[in-house]
């Protein structure tokens, strides 16, 4: 079996674990959506309890196995139930409105941070002891700062005081969302500061890691041999040292993706960015369980799919994975 197929099987397994956890948690924990609605409207008759249960589909009729099968079917049809927060709305509608915002912002910024961080790491590792290297203690500080805190500082300095960027929101007031130039321009303008924040915070980690692997790789015999042959330094760095140092870096990227994406999503809250993060905050505050569950699944699946895409990149880069493909 090929590398990609085996990885695919692993992700399907991981997805199944996530789906099953998502199924079991509401049934094992106290509290449910109907109770939270009843608490919100104290003058509802007790008889409304059954009606709400039936409407929201949380009454759990039938055996556990039966519930499980129908739950899996619902997820496949992207039916996440009715929302509690904006009551008659479907959860999937709310998700469809917010996912593009997060996907574009967090996706682009994360890939950019990885690319820039790796690039700087190559330079720092090659020019070991140079000025980039001396920035390392500062970078450790950035690594330790919570994303959302840096976001607060960015807003304070660049938006509130310097007034260069808007304070928050996804687009300006009075702009009509749609495929028109003012809206797209406004959306890009509003996403610059959040994107910059994500890049700054997650870049440091990639740079540090790439630098460390580079330093180890540069000591390898084949790099010395390449230098001895009199190849141009740029060729030695890029096609000999960095070419090999990037393999563990790519694997690390896959493993850290969950952290990075979750951090970026929390950061959206600070910017009142109309993405998944803000939706999650509202869901948590309103005890909106169906929405919380759906968001967990969306983020998990996004990370799993990104990992699968990354595996394709690894196949392109790593001859060991390619030979497995051929077998």
């Amino acid at each position, binding site marked *: *079996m090929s*590398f990609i197929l*085996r990885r695919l*099987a*692993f992700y399907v*397994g*991981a997805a199944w674990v*996530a789906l099953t*956890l998502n199924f079991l948690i509401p049934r094992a924990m106290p*509290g449910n959506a109907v109770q939270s609605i009843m608490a919100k409207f104290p003058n509802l008759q007790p008889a409304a309890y059954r009606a709400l249960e039936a409407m929201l589909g949380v009454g759990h009729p039938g055996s556990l196995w039966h519930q499980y099968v129908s739950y899996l079917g619902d997820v496949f049809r992207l039916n996440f139930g009715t929302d509690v927060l904006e009551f008659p709305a479907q959860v999937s509608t709310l998700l469809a409105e917010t996912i593009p915002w997060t996907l574009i912002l967090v996706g682009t910024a994360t890939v950019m941070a990885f690319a820039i961080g790796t690039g700087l790491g190559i330079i720092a590792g090659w020019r*070991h002891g140079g000025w980039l290297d001396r920035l390392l*203690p500062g970078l*450790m*500080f950035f*690594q*330790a700062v*919570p994303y*959302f*805190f840096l976001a*607060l500082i960015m*807003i*304070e300095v660049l938006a*509130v005081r310097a007034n260069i960027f808007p304070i928050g929101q996804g687009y300006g007031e009075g702009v009509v969302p749609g495929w028109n130039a003012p809206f797209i321009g406004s959306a890009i303008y509003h996403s610059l500061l959040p994107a910059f924040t994500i890049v700054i915070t997650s870049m440091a980690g*990639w740079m*540090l890691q790439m630098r460390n692997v580079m*330093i180890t790789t540069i000591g*390898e015999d*084949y790099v010395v041999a390449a230098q001895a042959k009199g190849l141009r330094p740029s060729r030695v760095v890029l096609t000999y040292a960095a070419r*090999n*140092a990037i*393999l*563990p870096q790519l*694997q*690390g*990227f*896959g*493993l*850290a993706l*969950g*952290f990075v*994406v*979750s*951090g970026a999503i929390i950061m959206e*809250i*600070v910017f009142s960015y109309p993405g998944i993060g803000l939706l*999650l*905050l509202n869901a*948590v*505050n309103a005890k909106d369980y169906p929405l*919380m569950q759906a968001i*967990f699944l969306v*983020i*998990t699946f996004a990370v799993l799919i990104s*990992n699968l895409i990354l*595996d394709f990149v690894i196949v392109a880069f790593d*001859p*060991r*994975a390619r*030979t*497995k493909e051929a077998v």
Partner: protein
Amino acid sequence: MTAAPPLVAEVPVLTVRPARGGRWQRLPLKAKAGAVLLGIFALAGIFGPLVSPYDPSFQSPSLSLSMHAPYGAHWLGTTQSGQDVFSQLLFGIRLTLELAVVVGAIATALSVIVGVTAAFLGGLWDDLLSLTSNVFLVIPSLPLLILLLGYLPQQGQTPTIIVLAALGWPWGARVIRAQTLAIRNRDFVAASRETGERTWRIIAFEIVPNEVSLIAASFVNTVLYAIGASVALAFIGLADLNSWSLGTILYWAQSQQALTLGAWWWFVPPGIAVALIGTGLVLLNTGIDELGNPRLRDARASRSARPADPTPVWQQETPPRGPLTRLAASFSRSALLSEQRERP
């Protein structure tokens, strides 16, 4: 390219040197800086609440004290309801550190148990445990934490600790398993096995003492994770909002518009505190790494074992696999990439 990929990391060997001179002097500079930084915060956490100038929850009735900038009587200013930010910070550091250390201890114990068990039992058990930790590494933990805590009717310190610890072990387990596999076949372990030592004695007195630096690093990492996650969870409101932690201070600052009203003294100090504690932990970890692995020091390469680091793989030490265990292992990325070298 040579056969050995840079995936293979050096085996950290803990050299026990004779106690000559102060231990403190021999510590790498980074570890010293980290330890001092953490020491300051630990002292603030222990003694801070005792010397705190005000009750952090006391709301000053005087309107002029609402969102007052720092001055003599309130070193870090006041919140919207006239609470003293400095006192909140002192209480917050204690609660945050308490939670992080407890989570770190529980999760690290779990990683040691899982990692050592997996490496010692080998075979199918090893692969099942490894597969489980790989699955939990790839599922993003923060949304899962939010889901678990969101379903609780009441937020509090204990549930947060339990949930964070339950999800915090896979990374450490992976690293410790790899290290145990490497040590397991060393001569001194074989020698004690030959002399008839029981397995638990070998584990407790031969294996674990040789992994002290790794376990310490894993503990520091888990504390870092616990601080980050607990602050983020509190920030979105999934904590006991009547208690004072660094995260809840940030939550109140955010929800009461500290930002738009320009009250920087309200949200900057707790954020800086989180960042400095984090920096201290990263520095300490780098120091522990250098202490345990002199080669890193010689290369002047600092490695902090972040979750993003590739797990060191010692493939040559992997025990032979049966068909079933081979299948179970064949789904992990690193096993797939190194499988070729396993075949002679």
